[in-house]
């Protein structure tokens, strides 16, 4: 046990509740021990709207995950998303005290505090403050200023914040199961841990996680997060559009989308598709594609425009990585590269052992990413001796019995 840690990632998505149990070995490799998932209900646009229903789904997913992994799950890392999540970049500056030459850890804390001190709406709370770069006396892009000699220390932070109460609702829902939430992570931050490797992050990459209810994105340039966010439109919208335009039930619309639909208007095979169970009702392939294309184009434009203005689209050396369930939609890659003007990469899962076939599926990028996030978090924590770890464990056990 001392050499490995078990983490659980939980994503309450619009289409599914998914728990992934992973073991992080001492060599850094992740082994997936088990997965529990359940189609979700009571979630709209990435946020919990019906706590009770969600808890039922969560229970189900939890028991499956415990069964398969043979691990008793107490704490989870929770992925959060929703249209309320916003991000911004801010720079903090401090002057290092004159009598002190080298930059100390306290200085880093101080500069972080200052960088984080941006006016965000009162009802919002910080989700992440991710360091982008340090500047020491104007020297650009210092990765680790600790111990460097300098007088002026600046730090660029990418700050992700969201409405406190809406995040708390998600946490509350999970706690009532009961599961303890160890940390919350903005979904694309987690997904990026799996989908984007170090090379991609350094050369510049945009991750688009097109899920059921939301589309999350995160953009890396020079190894640092420069933009992230969430648009509350996803695959569900496409299904809904099809259902509304063709006036058919949602379930049939979903099926139509998955089996026949394409977001691309190119190479349309002209012909009629019979809609199952609708007494010979047919729909033209062209019309179906037009409906899907209109939505996909709009969604991608909403995301691409701010990024274009920010000037990051030119810096994406590695292009765009698509993930999330809706990225399996036909033609979406083509539309994406057209709109962003950047090539789209085939995403491949990071090295992992276990029933990995399952995890090459982009649907699992976020929960698996949570485990990697937990692993990174663990690495950042100060290393402790085996004895103190043991003591801590005892403390936990004793504390838990209170």
């Amino acid at each position, binding site marked *: 046990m001392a050499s490995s840690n078990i983490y659980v990632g939980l994503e309450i998505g619009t289409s599914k509740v998914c728990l992934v149990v992973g073991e992080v070995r001492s060599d850094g490799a992740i082994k997936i021990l088990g997965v529990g998932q359940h189609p979700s209900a009571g979630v709209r646009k990435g946020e919990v709207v019906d706590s009770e229903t969600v808890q039922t789904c969560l229970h189900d997913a939890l028991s499956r995950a415990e069964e398969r992994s043979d691990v008793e799950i107490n704490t989870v890392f929770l992925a959060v998303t929703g249209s309320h999540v916003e991000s911004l970049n801010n720079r903090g500056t401090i002057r290092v005290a004159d009598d002190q030459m080298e930059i100390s850890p306290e200085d880093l804390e101080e500069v972080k505090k200052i960088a984080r001190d941006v*006016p965000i709406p009162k009802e919002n709370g910080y989700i992440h403050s991710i360091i982008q770069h340090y500047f020491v006396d104007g020297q650009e892009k210092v990765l680790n200023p600790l111990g460097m000699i300098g007088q002026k220390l600046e730090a660029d932070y990418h700050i992700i914040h969201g409405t406190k109460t809406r995040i708390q609702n998600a946490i509350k829902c999970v706690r009532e199961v009961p599961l303890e939430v160890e940390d919350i992570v903005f979904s694309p931050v987690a997904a990026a841990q799996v989908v984007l490797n170090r090379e991609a992050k350094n050369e510049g990459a945009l991750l688009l996680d097109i899920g059921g209810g939301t589309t999350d994105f995160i953009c890396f340039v020079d190894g640092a997060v420069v933009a992230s966010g969430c648009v509350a439109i996803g695959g569900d919208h496409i299904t809904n*559009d099809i259902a509304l335009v063709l006036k058919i039930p949602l379930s049939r619309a979903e099926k139509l989308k998955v089996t026949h639909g394409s977001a691309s208007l190119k190479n349309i095979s002209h012909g009629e598709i019979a809609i199952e169970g609708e007494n010979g009702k047919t729909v033209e392939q062209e019309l179906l594609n*037009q409906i899907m294309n209109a939505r996909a184009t*709009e969604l991608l434009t909403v995301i691409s425009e701010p990024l274009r203005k920010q000037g990051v689209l030119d810096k994406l050396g590695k292009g765009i990585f698509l993930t999330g369930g809706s990225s399996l939609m036909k033609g979406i890659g083509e539309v994406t590269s057209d709109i962003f003007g950047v090539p789209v990469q085939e995403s491949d899962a990071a090295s992992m052992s276990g029933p990995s076939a399952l995890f090459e599926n982009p649907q699992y990028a976020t929960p698996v990413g949570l485990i990697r996030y937990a692993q990174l978090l663990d690495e950042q924590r100060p290393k402790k001796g085996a004895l103190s770890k043991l003591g801590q464990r005892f403390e936990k056990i004793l504390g838990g019995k209170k």
Partner: protein
Amino acid sequence: MIEYDESARGELQLDSDLGVKVIGVGGAGANVLDRMALEGSDVAELLALNTDVRALKNSVSSEKIQLGSTLLKGMGTGGDPELGKQAALEAVDSIREAVRGAGMVFVCVGLGGGTGSGAAPEVCRIAKEEGVFLAVFATMPFSFEGQRRMDQAKLALSTIGQYANAVITFDNDRMGELIVPKDGVTQAFAAADKIISQSIRATMNVVFRPGIIHIGMDDLLAAIRTKDSRCLFGYGLSKGDNRSLEAVEQALKCPLLDRGKLLNEAQAVLVQVSGGDNMTLYEVQLVMEEVRKHVGENTQILFGTGTDKRLGSALSVTLISSIPGPGVEGAEIPASAAAASAPVSLSSAAPAGGAPSIRLSQAESAPPLPSAEADVPAPLRGRELSQQAEEGEDETLVFESLDDAPEVETVPEEEVPSYAPDSIPPALEDAEEATETVVSDERNPIARAIEDSQVADTGSIAPIQPADLGIEQLDEDEAPGAGHVEALTESSQKITLTRVVSGSGNTGRIKTRSPGDGGSNGPVMPPTKPPAMPAEELDDGEIPDEVKQQQELLQLEPVKAKGRFAKTDPTIVDGEDLDVPTFLRKKK
């Protein structure tokens, strides 16, 4: 982070020859001065004027002048304004001496008593003669103080109005509402004094603090605009991470603003944001965005910002605005005063200078051309329609006038306000004609004035836009109060007001209205104006249907299919509801 560079800007430039003097007249005025002194007034010299030597002795003001030392021998006036006036005349030289050389004089006075009502007009006259900029903060008496004091106060107010560049009235009755009823009397009055002293201070700060975007006297005048206005004033000061929003919130919470609700009615709002050196543009933006949420679409926002080192890490937000106050009705209620007020206010409008007088003249300049009878219904109907359309604003307007109604009713019959039915049948005929001319003529001047008009109407209802503009103008006319416009338009405005009431009553929108009101308003029209009335009644009859149609058109959010997202938070980007299928939206 963008930061203002304070060093580039000089420190507060307060020319010594442009000193500010705050004069408190009478007991109430002295109390306000004491409050200001207590809070440490930095710029202004305080001068207390009183007849009662004991009260004067207790005052902490730096300068004091005893009024009527020989006439009253150090006693009070016993509530007689005539005595107050005589007392002031006795000390005229020392007052003149004190006022001379000041750039700006604020007079604060509690009207209704002897010294306040008697001496304050004299002080104002002297100040005017000395050519200073004069702003008067007058407190109207509680209604329980009796009709006599109220009359004295109103008479004094109308006289003060002749001399002052700006008059801001605080209604004690309203102050009473603002303060927790169970508060002690001392606390209650202290709170009232505090509100007044804060507004004086804010006014001074706004004008004298150095501004990156400077607010001048003209902006201030535009914001308080009228002489009989109820002053809306809010001030917030906050430190810490979220100081900008906290400061705005505090400012909006100020009792005079009624949590920002009253700002909706204001025509112009002055916003001043000050902070220390570290105030960021982003913070200013936050403030302005928050303020914008609270004001109407057409409200003119006068914005100023500046840095002030004394604020340190704090950020202050000052909101100043006005809506037509009790003075609008009040000024001409006494029959004698009504006659006097028209010529008087004309002369006073002239020297006022600055924005308000320009606006007033705009209203006045509509030439009273003879009108064709046929013109009347159309604009009227259009007007009432748009009245209905602009629901929010108008409801408040209507309630406003209704609220005022009881106050008016307490006035004895002889002093009935000009729009009460029985008292003015003779005048009414003229007035009716005036209405016609005003209403029908207004279309053209307005149409011409559209470009110049600050109230550029962005109303979404294209067909009724002309009428819409007409209403803006009418509203504006109502706002400055009849006291400032010549007699003809004055009475016509009254009628406009009553029509608004009856019009909205007919549609059944305002249920709180008692049938009695309808009765009293209805008869105003029919007997005096038989030819026009049937048409109007017809219009009124039609209105409910048309209003409904209009309202449906106004629903900006079309009822569109949203399917499973019908009950979720809408996802709105650039004003488009993205939950509606793109395909359906783009097809259009």
